[in-house]
């Protein structure tokens, strides 16, 4: 419940100014939302994820295109477990009411020895008083 309250506050954070790179408040908000996504997924908290995913979200992983509905269905089907995703450095760039977050994360779901590092690009759009994730994609990083 506290997590949803926090999300609502973050989602409602007003855009400040259209600058690039992002102002500190926007950058902080986006980093928190990225972490909220990872935590929501680990807790199988579809309600929290539903708040940050736009209905037209497009998500690409392993070369597959996944819709919001398909993503949430998959999250619901998996048992809650401690997050296997470790978020690393992120860069936030702002273009008016649109934000691009580029960063890396470590996926330890196949075991610590087979941990795979991914680079991601996420697009957030401020609509109806909230930041919504409209596109997300990741590519595995070559060793």
């Amino acid at each position, binding site marked *: 419940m506290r997590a949803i309250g926090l999300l609502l506050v973050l989602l409602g954070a007003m855009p400040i100014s259209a600058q690039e790179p992002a102002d500190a408040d926007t950058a902080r908000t986006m980093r928190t939302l990225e972490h909220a996504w990872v935590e929501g997924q680990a807790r199988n908290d579809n309600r929290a994820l539903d708040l940050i995913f736009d209905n037209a979200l497009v998500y690409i992983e392993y*070369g597959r295109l996944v819709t919001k509905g398909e993503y949430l269905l998959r999250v619901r089907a998996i048992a809650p477990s401690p997050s296997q995703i470790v978020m690393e450095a992120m860069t936030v760039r702002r273009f008016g009411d649109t934000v691009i977050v*580029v960063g890396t994360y470590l996926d330890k779901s196949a075991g610590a020895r087979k941990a795979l*590092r991914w680079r991601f690009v996420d697009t957030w759009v401020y609509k109806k008083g909230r930041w919504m994730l409209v596109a997300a994609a990741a590519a595995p990083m070559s060793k």
Partner: protein
Amino acid sequence: MRSLMLVALLACAGTSAGYAPEDSESDVGAKILAMERVWSQAYASKDPKALDRILDVAFVNVDSDGRLQSKAEVLAEVRTSTALQFLTESMVVHMHGNTAIVTGVFLIKGVDHGKAYVQRERFVDTWFYKDGQWVSIAGLVTRIEQ
């Protein structure tokens, strides 16, 4: 000659026409798809001139090896492209006000160090309406698992 055709196509595609408020989403979508084709054609023709106009100065790309590329690095990559054919398939545009998301598939055929290759990759590009024209601000490409 090829570069002239690219510039002409680009002008028709929308950078000069821009985005008028009366443009419908389908009009805007068609313009953006045309620019996506200009983008892929740039790789096949090894000519970054047209691409230079449709990538924002702050453009960032993640390639299929997870490498982060700036606009300058992408333009340099185009000049040394090994692609002979670069086709786009299954493209879909999602409009979010002055932002557009395009997803699609690349089919790339080329020759690298004397060896022919065929690659299929899925991409997602983010476009933003800025200073009277649509520019791409971010992209990511990932291999399609067989």
